[in-house]
């Protein structure tokens, strides 16, 4: 016997404790189920949630976040989970956007598309294609995921990233306030760019429920070329204006340059270059495993890619030329801190298990935005550190 407790006393206490915990658990989950459909949670490498909820309209999104904020319950917003970024999030509630999946409006005359955040990009692209339009990205996932990860693509050379392409959005704050921010027009100088602050913030500041994006007339033809990296400067700063330029570096020293041009057939027939050209869209390779993102200076992505490949002892580096982004696959993250000191630019652990600081930067500005948009700090806890860990 220990401290006068009999086995039966211990068993009774344990049962009471479990019962209490079940009561607490069932209590908030039950309350939540009155607002929205609740199902089993998630247990994957990038997120763990106790329950998942599936809102069917924006009001339900707001209700869930309002409820979570009022009851200090953490929330992890996600949809398809195709491109997780950053540390694993553990949250009470997974907020799943899969049912907010419609394309709402395509305007060929005004060149914008309006879609819900759970809309798969494949569906959106199909709708745009019917009208001779396209959204310049090769992201696979949902609209909300694309915007929340500010996903770089080969098209970022010319078109930029979601930061430049998202014209406006309906968002929801961490405490459940729905806000229209920006518009469907290409210019907006009528208040704080709240929606722009959410782009690339991985659902940590607020969530997108609806997005308005700039789209483009689909070029008559696409022509792709591969060639020597010595052509890079000419392609980037010369007359041809490729839509996409990327360079792949491998640890063994191999390098390859790819480019995509889009325009009128009559014009592209006259391209004079030593690239090996073929019709169609060539894409850079997909990285697997542990991935690191380097925020390089725009126009110098190749230089930073080579330096980062060496400093991080990486396997493959892709320089998305003109975007300021380099991505690398690495065996492990042992050299991240040293590479940060060496290169002097932000180096981010994009995907994989890392015991250290995924981001390497902690501006106070983000803390202020967090205070304003998610005052109780319920969204994606641990995704971004507010101070040095």
């Amino acid at each position: 016997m220990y401290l006068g407790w009999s086995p039966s006393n211990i068993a009774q206490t344990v049962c009471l404790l479990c019962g209490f915990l079940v009561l607490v658990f069932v209590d908030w989950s039950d309350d939540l189920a009155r607002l929205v459909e609740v199902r089993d949670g998630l247990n994957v490498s990038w997120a763990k949630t106790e329950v998942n909820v599936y809102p069917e309209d924006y009001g339900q999104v707001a209700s869930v976040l309002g409820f979570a904020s009022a009851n200090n319950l953490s929330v992890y917003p996600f949809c398809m989970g195709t491109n997780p970024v950053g540390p694993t999030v553990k949250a009470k509630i997974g907020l799943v956007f899969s049912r907010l999946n419609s394309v709402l409006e395509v305007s060929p005359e005004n060149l914008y598309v309006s879609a819900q955040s759970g809309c798969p990009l494949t569906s959106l692209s199909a709708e745009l294609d019917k009208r001779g339009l396209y959204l310049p990205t090769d992201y696979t996932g949902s609209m909300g995921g694309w915007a929340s990860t500010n996903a770089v693509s080969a098209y970022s050379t010319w078109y930029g990233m979601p930061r430049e392409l998202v014209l406006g959005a309906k968002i929801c704050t961490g405490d459940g306030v729905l806000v229209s921010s920006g518009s469907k027009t290409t210019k907006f100088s009528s208040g704080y760019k709240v929606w722009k602050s959410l782009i690339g913030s991985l659902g940590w500041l607020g969530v997108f429920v609806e997005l308005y994006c700039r789209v483009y007339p689909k070029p008559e033809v696409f022509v792709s070329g591969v060639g020597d990296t010595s052509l890079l400067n000419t392609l980037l700063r010369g007359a041809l204006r490729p839509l996409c330029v990327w360079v792949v570096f491998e640890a063994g020293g191999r390098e390859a340059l790819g480019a995509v041009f889009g325009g009128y057939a009559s014009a592209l027939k006259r391209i004079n270059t030593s690239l090996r050209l073929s019709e169609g869209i060539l894409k850079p390779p997909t990285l697997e495993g542990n991935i690191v993102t380097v925020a390089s200076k725009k126009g110098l992505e190749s230089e930073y890619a080579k330096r980062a490949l060496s400093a991080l002892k990486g396997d493959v580096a892709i320089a998305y030329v003109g975007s300021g982004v380099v991505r690398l696959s690495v065996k492990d993250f042992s050299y991240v801190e040293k590479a940060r000191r060496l290169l002097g630019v932000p180096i981010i652990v994009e995907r994989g298990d890392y015991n250290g600081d995924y981001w390497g930067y902690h501006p106070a500005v983000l803390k202020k935005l967090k205070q304003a948009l998610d005052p109780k700090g319920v969204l994606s806890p641990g995704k971004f550190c507010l101070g040095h860990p």
Partner: protein
Amino acid sequence: MFIWNSCDVVVVDVRREVEEIVGARWVVEGEDAALFGFDAFTAVKGRPRLVALPADEEQTVRLIALLYRSCTPMVFRGSGTSLSGSTVALTGEEVVVSLTRLNRVYSCEGLEIEVGPGLANVLVTRHAPHDLFYAPDPSSYTVCSIGGNVSHDSGGIHVPKYGSTFNSVVKLRVALCDGSVEDVGGTPYFNGANIFVGSEGSLGAVLRATLRLHPRPETSRTVLGAFQDVASTARAVSAVYEEGVIPAAVEMMDRNSIDVVEKSRYKAGYPDCAALLLVECDGYTPQVEEEVRRVRLVFERLGGKVMVPENPAENSRLWLGRKGAFPAMGVVSPAYLTLDSIVPRTELASVLEEVGRIAERYGVMVANVFHAADGNLHPLIPYNPESPKSLENALRAGWEIVEASMKRGGVPSGEHGVGIEKARFMHQYYSQSELEVLWRIKRAFDPDRLLNPYKMLYENPPETGDRVVSLLYTKPWEAE
């Protein structure tokens, strides 16, 4: 001057402390400060308590910290070209912090150039490598400052292809109200620079901006289309895009604005027409040639007469006429209002018709010269600056135009900012809960509301005794 205030119990002689930081030579007050009291929104003139011109980032930061600690409202100012009154010292209590001396070019590497906020827009390209240029080019680009451009998210004629200032901002160095300095942006994730663009100096001061440069196009060609009715002109804008053309610029001028330009020193030899479009295509020469061919076909199909400049001088003359359209209004009146609302392209014809009806109702002339591809209207409404009635009439006509734009899915301001001019519309454009979220952001950065007070957001109107200011701050649904 000693200040007792509720923000800080420390008594501070603001003027003396400001002089200690920037030097007495760089403090302006009294009559000499009058020039800093107003900007390109000529309807309102303010009077700053003091003007301080810090030499560098360190002085700027110390100045901001001092002013905040002493509960002194402040307004950041560049060249004073704001068209929305964003740099006006409204109440007479504000210290104007002029950043014109922070005009260095710090570095240029790859496609990035790093500059101070006081640098004039035109000088960015001058300091870029010869094969690169800085794209955002507001009409005032020869004088407006980069800090002002960032604060207003300024646009210009090349936004359709190259985006507004926001798209060109890579990183910012900002000074916050507590005297801290942050380098933000330059990362794909958690970009802290985004919130400052278009924030009109109400969240912090821009100390430095890293901007994106673009490769110069190989070729640039202009096509002018002269149409006999506004509807066809507006239709032509969308039709150009439907041909797969991504123009670098599409500018529209109506008959009134053409007439004004043709009477001014900016005379361009524009044809007699109801409205014209100036389209610029740039890029790879074979692509541009095909784009020009298609634009011509579009114009001809919609009944437009096509003119293509035959030489660079003619090309420059056509564009100078457009860029001079605002100052050309001087032939009509020494003062005019410049509106800035945006509508979807498909609403252009409808809103221009409405503008015509509003002009008639108020008995004002409205000259429309604007960025047609963005749907960004710039109705110019002249008024007699000696007549308060004339100004009020012009303001009211302008308000109806902004409302007409919002009713058509537009926004109050595309590129000039909210400032004083459109502050009243914030209560109309946003719901109360949306405004509260904007206020939460404001309070997080500026808890004592000392940074550019009464601009963009306001709780109660400023007490200035000025009828025009009082009108500008009356919410549209309130009795005046």
